[in-house]
């Protein structure tokens, strides 16, 4: 029997606002344990949660960026369960009246066909504390770090619109790009600011009803999400084939063994409206104001790049997938750099160099202004491409202007016809054999001669002019 998979995703995203969701503690979960705490996020008796305006705005921007409809009336519920990372006994989450409903992202399936993945809803919730398990002497102990407790999260719940790991991966990449665009989160699965759970079920191909789903957690990269889904589809298909029933439960992805392992029965506790956090009522004006703050989103920007700069669709999509990259590119063109050159040097030279140094484009020492100054020298033939690559690497070491580095290293190209003519005369005299080859119709010798001239100039000669002058010289003597 052939099976098809039905996959839905639940994505938790940590918002990057300065404070926690319900108090003024810094939103920095990575600090020294239990530094960023107060009676509210420690959930002490008598404390009252106070919803952060900044978090609400970041969450609303994120929803609008995904095309979801902000709900003018939304509210927090108490999601009841107990675990040592939630000593309060309930998590504040929006179960009944979420912040936004609907929306979606266009993705391409394996065959390159466009497909819309719909979002069911987006809600806000507070993160729970972090448990650290250690051994003290021979006794296992568990410690609780409350720095993460109360950190603002949004959860994006999709419709079960995916049928392959590829589609899920495409969706997550596009989602990450869009959320980064609106500036609500860095969305790093590696750093835990984006966490993905996948709900997966299989059914005979073409069937209409859905089978029991299994939830898979603990993937810490987008690639792992794909691997885990692929494994789970295989596992469930085999077990249905063997006539076994699939039960509703949660499984953990083991990245080393590349398998999913059962964790626990899925627990769905009750949710009651929280009587203390007031219902959030958002006016049409407020929502419109948020919408006006939305930046140009990736798809729109890519289309504009094609129209405005004559880039290919692929190039435009690449540049606009990340707001920093797109912004950098546009800053280069504003400096007068030709779009193709800007695109090419950004993609093949600068971005790899930044990645290698584990830096970020937005705060790297190579600013658009410095990079543009370098590319301008290249386009004006003041330096050649090799020298430009060399200078780029040196731009990371300090704040000198590129021209100063070019001069200090003696990279400036020699384009003076007189100086180059003298070099050419010398090379032609010295390489009589090659000249003879040319005379005998062996074209290869031309390249050899250019190489010798370049070598004689210490790599500084402008190759274009060398070729031109050498051509004239040979014409004259042959």
């Amino acid at each position, binding site marked *: 029997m052939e099976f098809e998979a039905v996959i839905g995703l639940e994505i938790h995203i940590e918002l990057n606002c300065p404070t926690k969701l319900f108090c003024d503690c810094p939103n920095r979960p990575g600090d020294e344990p239990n530094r960023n705490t107060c009676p509210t996020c420690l959930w002490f*008796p*008598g404390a009252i949660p106070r919803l952060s305006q900044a978090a609400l705005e970041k969450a609303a921007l994120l929803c609008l960026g995904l095309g979801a409809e902000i709900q003018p009336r939304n509210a927090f519920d108490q999601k009841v369960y107990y675990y040592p990372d939630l000593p309060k006994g309930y998590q504040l989450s929006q179960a009944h009246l979420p912040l936004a409903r609907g929306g979606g992202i266009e993705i391409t399936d394996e065959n390159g066909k466009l497909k819309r993945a719909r979002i069911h809803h987006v809600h806000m919730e507070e993160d729970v504390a972090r448990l650290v398990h250690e051994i003290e002497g021979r006794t296992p102990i568990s410690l609780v770090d409350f720095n993460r407790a109360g950190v603002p999260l949004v959860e994006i719940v999709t419709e079960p619109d995916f049928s392959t790991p590829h589609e899920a991966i495409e969706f997550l990449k596009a989602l990450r790009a869009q959320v980064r665009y609106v500036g609500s989160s860095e969305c790093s699965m590696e750093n835990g600011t984006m966490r993905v759970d996948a709900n997966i079920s299989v059914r005979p191909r073409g069937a209409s009803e859905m089978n029991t789903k299994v939830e898979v957690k603990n993937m810490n990269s987008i690639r792992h999400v794909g691997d885990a889904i692929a494994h789970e589809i295989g596992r469930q298909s085999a077990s249905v084939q063997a006539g076994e029933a699939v039960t509703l439960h949660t499984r953990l992805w083991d990245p080393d063994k590349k398998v999913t392992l059962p964790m626990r029965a899925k627990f769905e506790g009750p949710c009651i409206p929280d009587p203390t956090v007031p219902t959030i009522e958002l006016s049409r004006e407020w929502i419109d104001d948020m919408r006006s703050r939305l930046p140009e989103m990736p798809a729109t920007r890519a289309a504009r790049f094609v129209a405005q700069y004559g880039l290919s669709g692929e190039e435009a999509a690449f540049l606009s997938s990340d707001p920093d990259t797109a912004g950098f590119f546009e800053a280069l063109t504003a400096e007068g750099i030709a779009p193709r050159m800007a695109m090419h040097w950004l993609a093949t030279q600068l971005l790899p160099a930044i990645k290698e140094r584990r830096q970020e484009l937005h705060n790297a020492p190579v600013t658009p202004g410095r990079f543009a100054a370098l590319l301008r020298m290249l386009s004006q033939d003041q330096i050649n491409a090799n020298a430009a690559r060399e200078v780029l690497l040196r731009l990371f070491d300090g704040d000198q202007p590129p021209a100063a580095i070019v001069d200090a290293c003696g990279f400036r190209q020699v384009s003076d016809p007189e100086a180059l003519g003298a070099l050419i005369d010398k090379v032609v005299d010295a390489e009589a054999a090659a000249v003879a080859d040319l005379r005998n119709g062996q074209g290869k010798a031309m390249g050899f001669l250019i190489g010798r001239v370049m070598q004689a100039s210490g790599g500084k000669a402008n190759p274009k002019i060398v070729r031109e002058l050498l051509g004239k010289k040979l014409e004259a003597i042959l």
Partner: protein
Amino acid sequence: MDSPFFYRNPAAPAAPSGPLAGSKIAVQPNLSVAGWPADAGSNALADFKALEDATIVKRLRQAGASLCGATRMSEFGFGLRGSRAGEAIRSQAADAELVLDLMGESRLAAIRAAVCGFKPSYGLVSRLGLIGLIPSMESCGLLAETPATIRELLKAVAGQDCLDFSMPDDEPLDLAPQDIDPPKTTIGVVAEAQSGLTAEQEALFRSSLDQLKQAGFSLLEMSLPEFSLFSLVHRIVGSVEASSSAGRYDSVRYGPRAAGAKNWNEMYLLSRAAAFGPLLKSYLLQGALFQFERYEAYENACRIRARLLRQMQRLASRADCLVFPAVDGAAGGGPPLLADTYGQFAWTLFANVTGQPALYLPPPPDAAHAGLQLAGARLSDGRLLALGEHLVNLHPRGK
């Protein structure tokens, strides 16, 4: 347990200034006073000491009042079992007491101590630092000898608190003394609120109404056919909220952890099981049942609550205030049962369901009638206290 105090402030009162200078105020250990034990009457919080002052406490201090201590209270202030509220005023150890009112505790404590007891409008007084149980029903009640004292206290503590977002954006209340002109003042009497009274209680209530008539007020008979639903709504919504919000009062962090557990899960379960007393435990279990198994009943109760609120608002808009029987329906000294507790508060809990203010006035000494319970529309607190002042001044207590 001779003293009504659970904790006495060891610090001598400073020589403060302000409208409440010289007033001694007793709180309960469910109101946070920095450094004071705050167990809210429960083993689950046995070792908890408050980290900071509740907003109410801060404002009382700013107004010059001194806090003399915390009195013994029922577990989480639910009902009056173990509560000694009112006694500190009777023994003149305090001029006023703050008593959390979840279903009428401040008013019933006032009946017992023969003092005035007032539950302010919901949202009028900050709840920051209040270790409560039923967030949407409870309000910090005030006990004192006279409505005038209560008004002065309320002036000091009422109003917006930038740390309590749950307070509605109400305009500040006018709590200045007001003149009452009885012939122009209509007092509504809700017929259904008298059902369930014994013949004796009914007779006492009738004679209270006669007193009002004699004082020149015009009485208006009114009907609220669903009055009996208040109790049911309070019981369902209250228990569900309690069950959920009591999650944070886990004996694991603040109270004694149960010994002999095999793992943390078992330790957690055993500690919680040992932490709560029988009455509260049955209340929490009832709330958990509605949460997990009968959620639709909870949703219905919320809908009925909204309906009752509208009906009560309509009645309140037709009169200057409403009068209700002031009855302590205590069931005697049997085992603590939820049904008995709800029976005891049957004539007070309506105001917790609706969030309206309610004032208990004790009868004059040697009077043949009972005290009165007055209630008004939400935020009519100033008018209600002025009316109380007027009525108390008709029969000065001559103390």
